[in-house]
């Protein structure tokens, strides 16, 4: 939204904000540009293409996820493997040529730091992924296909996120 002002650089508020945001895998990239809300529609366009691919390649199918974890099909490994190769080549090229966004800002990256959450949380997430047959992206896509009961699963995932936030200080990291 065009009216949000970032905290002054170097201020305590900005540092606290960065600290909280950088605990996550994303969220630390911040544009200094202020745009009207409808500039965000370009991300909707990317999402539409992405959502169509999700459904048509059956990535949102509970059966494909079961087959992946039972080593009964190559499909999902092919999808994720191809995506990582294309993504890695793209990131390499963006870094090599110091590519800029369409608004001229330098594309930036942040290294992830290791903590035990990637082990415990990863394990829990994997268990849930095989139960629901959907990670967060496919949850949204499944609802889009008309499987409205999945909103219950999505609300439960939001509840899980909230409980994590509530317990965060007491969990091993």
């Amino acid at each position, binding site marked *: 939204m065009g009216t949000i002002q970032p905290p002054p650089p170097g201020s305590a508020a900005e540092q606290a904000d960065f600290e*909280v945001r950088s605990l*996550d*895998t*994303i*969220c630390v*990239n911040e544009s200094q540009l202020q745009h009207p809300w409808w500039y*965000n529609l370009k*991300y909707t366009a*990317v*999402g539409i*293409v*992405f959502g*169509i*691919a999700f*459904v*048509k390649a059956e*990535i949102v199918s*509970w*059966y494909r996820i*079961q*087959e992946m974890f*039972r080593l009964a099909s190559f499909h999902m490994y092919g*999808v994720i493997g191809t995506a*990582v*190769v294309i*993504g*890695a080549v*793209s990131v390499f*090229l963006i870094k090599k040529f110091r*590519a800029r*966004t*369409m608004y001229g800002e330098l*594309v930036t990256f942040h290294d*992830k730091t290791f903590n035990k*959450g990637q082990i*415990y*949380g*990863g394990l*829990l*997430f994997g*268990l849930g*992924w095989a*139960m*629901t047959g*959907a*990670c*967060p992206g496919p949850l*949204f896509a499944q*609802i889009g*296909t*008309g499987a409205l009961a999945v909103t219950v*699963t*999505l609300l*439960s*995932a939001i*509840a*899980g996120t*909230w409980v*994590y936030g509530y317990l*965060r200080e007491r969990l091993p990291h």
Partner: protein
Amino acid sequence: MELLSQPWPWWAAGMIIGLTVPALLLLGNKHFGISSNLRHVCAACFPASIKFFQYDWKKELWNFFFIGGILGGAALATVLLHDPGPVQIHPGLANDLAAAGVTHIDGLAPAELFSWESLLSLRGLILMVGGGFIVGFGARYAGGCTSGHAIMGLSNLQWPSLVATIFFLVGGFLMANFILPFILTL
């Protein structure tokens, strides 16, 4: 159109998902990650003075637009590119499901397990509500999900993301092969 209506091959979907990474970066320096939306919902709707939810979620508004597109794209694919053919599944999986009384192999998931009615059964409740809960809890605990770690993190050669991805798979193997067969008997 007919070609597009058939199930797409893995490489086509993999390319589109892979290209999402540079698309978001070049459009606005955005890093691909979907589960953080769940956090933004918490921050926007029920922050409850929890420090983890005290940040300016409006800066992440683009991500809501992105998942709105995913939802819309999925609807478009269903309406415009509907494939009338039967769902193909591995015979071993079909046998195991049939043994647990799950025979309606249709759509994206068996209706006996994932539907409004199944919420009234113990196994449906465990899979939909319990599964959803640990997807949300685990994704945030791990600092990301399949998109943030397995796709974006690995693309950026981040070894913590490799650790997370390996444990996603370990958890999935344990559930699909050892725990889910038990849940299906409930």
